[in-house]
């Protein structure tokens, strides 16, 4: 008997007799001989639960997580505190182990959570329609491109360089498939270049993609930047950080047709990048073109309130090749975690958290800017993440800080070669004033050690 099965030898004998065969092997006879694997898989033998636990604990120990290092790395995923009730509720069997709610009579819990989640995301983004979640952030951006092409009949997608590099890359990957042309617009002092954007948008443009705060932390002037999209009848798609929407003007109030983003900051752990969820909100007109699951309120035959999957005629299991999208998941458990986190924060707590992030980020920015050898990468307003330039090789600065137990930030050089010495520093409510002070001190020290000064001429030359 293997792990997790329960057929005893007697069971097997009885079952085979009922089927009318002598062995399970007979059942496999439909697999042609030439295609039967004639050896065991080249994998280890099964292990005891205790041994598996030890093996995985040993692997986990070789990672420097946010308990071991003070984490100032963000770049789309953030080390927020996840309240205990999120874990307690999300680990309940009734939420953890069901399938997609195809049988609504026995799935009211999950469907109602979707409905509550949709309401919350609509509120956050100030757009009337939300789906129940997509895979994660960057692929949601690519999904918006697909929607925009279908909605406008156009093929040109104009993208700000402030959009997360992973979002731009994912959009480019998808665009090869659905046949879109992607045009990038540059940044000016950290924010999207308004003139360049206006020139790039034309009557063939299906959508304009902005992110605010953008990847460099700058809060974009979305409303003004959206003017050219409105003028040419293109959709305005705004990626946003759900932890900033308690204080920042929401996309829906700035003319966005679609607001979307990475949902991880809401109730989801870092998990080395996933699973999390993508949120996707839109204007009323786009509801029948939305990707993903959507829960809707209705009544049962006795007139009782209930919830179902609404608008299923958009979806692949009904419409097949004519579906609005191929997606078949809602990341329901991750969206549940977000909903519980949002309920826990509540209306006031959510705003307070946003304010806390803004104030601590402002403090960190001011402290960092005051250090010789550190300058701000741009002067645009920021909310929870900021970009600096260090007068030393960024990798050496990060390495030195890591030795002091600090993950100091995300190096910008790989994604933005024009900012080779740039660092992106993220703040969460877990990053205390004392930790921020330590960070400033650690970066200052490493700039002194490795800076491009006459004393370190070789370092500078090696640059």
């Amino acid at each position, binding site marked *: 008997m*293997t*792990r997790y*099965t*329960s057929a005893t030898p007697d069971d097997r004998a009885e*079952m085979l007799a009922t*089927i009318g065969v002598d062995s399970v092997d007979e059942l496999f006879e439909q697999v*042609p001989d030439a*295609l039967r694997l004639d050896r065991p898989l080249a994998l*280890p*033998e099964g292990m005891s*639960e205790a041994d*598996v636990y030890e093996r*995985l604990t040993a*692997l*986990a120990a*070789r990672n420097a*997580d*946010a*308990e071991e290092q003070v984490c100032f790395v963000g770049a789309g995923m953030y080390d927020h505190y996840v309240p205990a*009730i999120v874990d*307690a509720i999300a680990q309940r*069997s*009734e939420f*953890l*182990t*069901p399938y997609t709610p195809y049988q609504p*009579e*026995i*799935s009211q819990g999950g469907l*109602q959570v979707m409905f509550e989640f949709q309401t919350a995301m*609509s509120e956050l983004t100030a757009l009337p329609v*939300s789906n129940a979640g997509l895979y994660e952030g*960057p*692929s949601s951006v690519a999904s918006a491109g697909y929607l925009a092409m279908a909605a406008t009949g156009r093929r040109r997608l104009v993208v700000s360089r402030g959009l997360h590099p992973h*979002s731009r890359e*994912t959009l480019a990957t998808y665009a*090869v498939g*659905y046949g879109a042309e992607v045009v990038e617009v540059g940044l000016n002092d950290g924010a999207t270049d308004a003139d360049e954007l206006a020139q790039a948008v034309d009557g063939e443009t299906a959508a304009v993609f902005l992110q605010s705060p953008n990847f460099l932390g700058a809060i974009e002037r979305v409303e003004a930047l959206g003017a050219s999209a409105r003028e040419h009848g293109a959709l305005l798609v705004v990626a946003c950080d759900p932890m900033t929407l308690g*204080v920042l*003007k929401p996309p829906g109030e700035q003319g966005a047709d679609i607001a979307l983003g990475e949902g991880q900051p809401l109730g989801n752990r*870092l998990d*080395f*990048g*996933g*699973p999390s969820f993508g949120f996707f909100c839109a204007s009323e007109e786009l509801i029948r073109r939305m990707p993903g699951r959507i829960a*809707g309120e*209705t009544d049962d035959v006795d007139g009782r309130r209930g919830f*179902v*999957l609404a608008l*299923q005629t958009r979806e692949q299991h009904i419409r097949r*090749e004519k579906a609005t999208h191929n*997606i078949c998941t809602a*990341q*329901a458990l991750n969206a549940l975690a977000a909903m519980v986190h949002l309920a*826990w924060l509540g209306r006031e707590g*959510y705003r307070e958290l946003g304010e806390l992030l803004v104030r601590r980020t402002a403090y960190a920015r001011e402290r960092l800017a005051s250090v010789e050898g550190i300058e701000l990468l741009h002067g645009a*307003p920021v909310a929870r993440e900021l970009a600096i330039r260090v007068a030393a090789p960024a990798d050496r600065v990060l390495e030195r800080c*890591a030795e002091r137990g600090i993950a100091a930030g*995300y190096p910008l050089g790989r994604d933005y070669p024009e900012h080779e010495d740039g660092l992106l520093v993220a703040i969460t*409510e877990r990053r205390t004033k004392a930790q921020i002070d330590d960070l400033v001190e650690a970066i200052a020290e490493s700039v002194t050690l490795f800076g491009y000064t006459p004393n370190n001429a070789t370092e500078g030359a090696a640059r």
Partner: protein
Amino acid sequence: MNQQDEAVLTIYERSKPGRRAAVLPDAEVPEAPLEELIPAELLREEPPRLPEVSEPEIVRHYNRLSRRNFDLDTGFYPLGSCTMKHNPRLNERVAALPGHARLHPAQDPKRAQGALELMWLLQESLAEICGLPHVSLQPSAGSHGELAGLLLTRAFHADRGEERTKVLAPDTSHGTNPASVTMAGYKAVKVATNERGGVEMDDLRAKIDEDPGDVACLMLTNPNTLGLFDENIAEIAALIHEAGGTLYYDGANLNAVMGHSRPGDMGFDIVHVNLHKSFSQPHGGGGPGAGPIAVSERIEPFLPRPQVVRREDGNGSGPFFDLDLERPKSIGRLRGFQGNFGVFVRSYAYILSLGADGLAEASETAVLNANYLKACLAAGRAGERLPVAFDRHCMHEFVLSGKPMKKELGLATLDLAKRLLDFGFHPPTVYFPLLVEEALMIEPTETETKESLDAFAEAIERILAEAEEDPEVAKQAPYTTPVRRLDEVKATRKPVVRQPLDG
């Protein structure tokens, strides 16, 4: 207000100004007015109307809601093509270790060696199970893997200076297949099914012969959605390869063949694996999952970026695991960061637990359970009323047709499904695949006991017996669920997709 009504209040309807749960840390830094930090026109005027509720209320609300869900931990869930097997709690425990759960995805690879090694080991394991040499863990779900596979196909042909437009798939395929085909910019072409439940070879040949140079790919599930292994697979593979196309394996049904037969050996170039099906990731009420892809040598150059690689360290201090971002021919990224790592941890724990022997035995037991349940049903009233669509041994699942039941008793498959709810069972997948009238697709999985299979067969028997007496009972079912049949038409015609809020 009784318990029933109490349960359907939303969290917003429980809200009362002034209540709250969260206590946040002190700011500790100067509390300047926000307008001094961010221009006023970029600030939100009113906070979003999130609920105002205390922690005890939140806990009670969501626990009450949870009781309105049916779940795998409570009952039998024979949902065809979904592989509702047991979700081991060990996997939850190891996924929650801080070294996994609090690891930032942008961590420098040298400080994430454990995570990258785990990903590499999972890649190697899946490669062996699929019989294909290379794996990308990046796709977030089966449908995402399909899209990846089609984009790989496009890149593969483009690299040879070809542009092909058609993707063939059987009429029994999952709905995601044709939807992915369209998203990838291809045209979906249906291939018919023969009387044995496999691909109709003459139709396949005809569809290829129309213009062999235009066939980009054939997408196939094997065993297919009828639960039958296509005996002609070697010939099918030869035909497609001869035409120059790629062969894509939808791994939704991999649970039937682990350790017994490998898609790579069948001739497939690209396979997606649903870690939430065969490899025990909990379904979470509709996500998360993961859909890694395994590919042949000729597809490898085009795999998504980044790819987890093992580099042999020159200093003799052992191998180094890294993220390869270069990959000049890659189709690029399919998502942010490296994929659904939390799912990888669970599935790797599962593979370690079962091992080579356990995986093979899991598939064997899945096939045994399916054939046993099929035989039990055939011996009862279902044998007449719900005959199996293709009468041969099945693999891990089988499809019944409710056509006689509908004709003779006036009972639709939907009615039977709804009546099963009153017996405490999750119904099978219904009305799929489309070519079987009034279809019921049943997949018991290996983790069910003989007793639960017997009980399910007994419930079907009782429902059919009851319907012979009075079909109205099932037609009005269910009776014992938190709500009864819901008006789905209304929810689509006049969708209410959010709570109206005041103030």
